[in-house]
């Protein structure tokens, strides 16, 4: 069995791509990689386009070795990966919508992000006029006696992002769920083109608001990889502090929200209070409750003072005092467990096939956590566990988050105890002509990938891949055979991003 290294030796290596190699390959190597993905020997990390090229990031799960392979498509076609490996399908449909490059023999040629409303087709490739009339979107068929369809969205009943869900149900039981997304597509990849790094990091921080720290972090690390730029020690620690505060706030909020969807409002109220305490501490320490626009290429723009440290410590003490009772309550409430145990079960094989990140993967036996597997600083020198469970149900996803709250508390303690005085930002050099970099950062929902190419210090192409790309399709799978009323629970336990996905 060839290793990733062998594969990369087959192609032409691109200079100035850090920290992992990128090679230009031919169609046979591209197809070979697709079949290795299909056999589960490698995982797909990303698949994206350029005006006349497609790129694929892959990882060898055993060694955590990563490589990007690229295929030129002069005739605007490339061999389909999705035909062999289903996780690639939506990504291929997106490449077609944005660049007009089509996957040969793909098993699903329907548009994905393009709803024929932009007034233009292939906005990032060779633009052409939009179709005069949108062809109706064909949902996949589900036929049988007594089946009925329930269309939901794009505007949902709660305060949530827009997307369309098409349920086919037999009585109360869901037989098929099909998602249609793309409603919040803002064309961020397009806006990145030609932008400065300063504007780029602001846009990255607005890809998905709940992960604003993680995105700015990933973007900055990608830019630094491209420019071979080291970051001052204090900034390295502050970034991890921001990332753990963000994880803590989101997990606390979501644990409560999941319980709320099982009509257990007491947990929601208490968890909401804890979440608010984290946001207030973050606001006091960094001047913004969601910690937006703090991380930039070269370091961070805001330092933390002693009162900020105190505010964070006070929030942590409060969580340590209150959270255990809530966990106990969750564990001891049979009516709640009745809704979460054995509901929305994700099989381990699917989690691994889709390389599902975050709590979705880790509740189904996939132990990948970018902080551990890729050990980027400062996580290479911090102590923490990566909790893993095998049940794969809503309950398991709640428990992973509970354990991660505990880990984040400990990580924040370690970070605060190590913070020593020093610079927080380094000057960013404009860089040589063309430089490329990639980064993978563990956000609260899973691994976020950012790949970019700079030309004379400006962004020529930037692609960001949200963990939701590989989690959304799994939500379709887990809801099968559950009742319609359990959908909110399943959905919330995944909490996929719409904005991060639609981009």
């Amino acid at each position: 069995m060839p290793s990733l290294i062998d594969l990369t030796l087959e192609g032409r290596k691109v200079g100035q791509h850090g920290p992992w190699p990128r090679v230009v390959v031919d169609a046979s190597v591209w197809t070979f990689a697709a079949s290795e993905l299909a056999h589960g020997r490698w995982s797909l990390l990303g698949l994206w386009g350029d005006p006349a090229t497609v790129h694929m990031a892959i990882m060898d799960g055993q060694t955590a070795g990563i490589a990007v392979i690229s295929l030129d498509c002069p005739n605007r076609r490339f061999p389909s990966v999705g035909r062999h490996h289903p996780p690639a399908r939506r990504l291929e449909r997106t490449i077609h919508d944005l660049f007009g490059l089509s996957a040969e023999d793909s098993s699903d040629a329907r548009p994905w992000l393009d709803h024929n409303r932009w007034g233009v087709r292939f906005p990032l490739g060779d633009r052409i006029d939009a179709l005069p009339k949108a062809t109706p979107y064909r949902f996949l068929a589900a036929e049988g006696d007594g089946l009925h369809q329930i269309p939901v969205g794009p505007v949902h009943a709660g305060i949530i992002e827009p997307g369309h869900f098409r349920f086919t149900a037999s009585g109360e039981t869901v037989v098929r769920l099909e998602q249609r997304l793309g409603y919040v597509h803002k064309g961020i990849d397009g806006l990145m083109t030609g932008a400065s790094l300063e504007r780029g990091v602001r846009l990255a921080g607005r890809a998905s608001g709940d992960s604003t720290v993680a995105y700015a972090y990933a973007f900055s690390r990608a830019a630094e990889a491209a420019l071979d730029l080291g970051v001052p020690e204090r900034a390295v620690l502050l970034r991890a502090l921001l990332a753990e505060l963000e994880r803590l706030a989101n997990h606390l909020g979501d644990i409560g929200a999941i319980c709320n969807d099982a009509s257990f409002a007491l947990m929601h109220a208490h968890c909401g209070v804890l979440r608010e305490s984290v946001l207030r501490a973050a606001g006091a320490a960094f001047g913004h409750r969601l910690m937006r626009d703090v991380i930039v290429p070269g370091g961070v723009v805001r330092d933390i003072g002693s009162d900020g440290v105190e505010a964070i410590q006070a929030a942590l003490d409060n969580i340590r005092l209150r959270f255990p009772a809530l966990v106990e309550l969750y564990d001891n409430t049979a009516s709640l467990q009745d809704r979460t145990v054995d509901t929305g079960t994700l099989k381990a094989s699917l989690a691994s096939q889709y390389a599902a990140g975050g709590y979705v993967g880790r509740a189904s036996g996939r132990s990948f956590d970018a902080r551990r597997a890729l050990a980027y600083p400062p996580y290479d020198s911090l102590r923490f566990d990566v909790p893993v469970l095998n049940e794969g149900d809503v309950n398991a996803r709640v428990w992973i988050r509970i354990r991660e709250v505990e880990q984040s508390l400990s990580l924040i303690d370690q970070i605060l105890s190590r913070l020593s005085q020093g610079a927080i930002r380094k000057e960013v050099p404009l860089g040589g002509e063309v430089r490329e970099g990639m980064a993978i950062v563990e956000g609260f929902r899973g691994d976020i990938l950012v790949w970019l190419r700079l030309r004379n210090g400006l962004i020529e192409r930037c692609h960001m891949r949200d963990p939701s790309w590989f989690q959304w399709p799994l939500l379709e799978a887990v809801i099968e055979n559950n009742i319609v009323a359990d959908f909110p629970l399943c959905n919330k336990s995944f909490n996929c991003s719409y904005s991060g996905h639609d981009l």
Partner: protein
Amino acid sequence: MRKLLFESVFRQPLTEPAPSAADAAVAELATAVGQTARRRLGRSLSIREVDAGSCNGCELEIHALNNAYYDVERFGLRFVASPRHADVLMVTGPVTKNMREALERTYHATPNPKWVVAVGDCARDGGCFAGSYAVIGGVSEVVPVDLHIPGCPPTPVAMLRGLLALVEQADTRTITS
């Protein structure tokens, strides 16, 4: 659970207390919103939230309005599930072209009299997404906006303050019309 419930009998409420020294703004607002809303409507003001393309940051802070600290329901403000039950549409995001129709339809489904509050910097003019092929721009390019609450995202306190302004505006509009 018994322990938690029992504890809550003795624990002070978390809700920002009326005139609180710590965060006087919220308290001041609390009374003001409460009185004006009651005077004007004599009942609750129902809000339907519509995400028309936001990054979800604004939604996080709108959610926070419901937590025990801000607890908007005590002012008679509450979030409802259907536009048909709403007096106010709270719209976030640079309206994406893919969401335009859904926003228009939600607006038309809301009975008169109604008010539209655009929340966040994106909702004013598209914010940093302005100029994209996929984005229309501000909310006012699609539906008439009565009030804009700036911020990226606005804090819950800023939103409360904005809602107060809205209730006052609603007052004058009734008087003049």
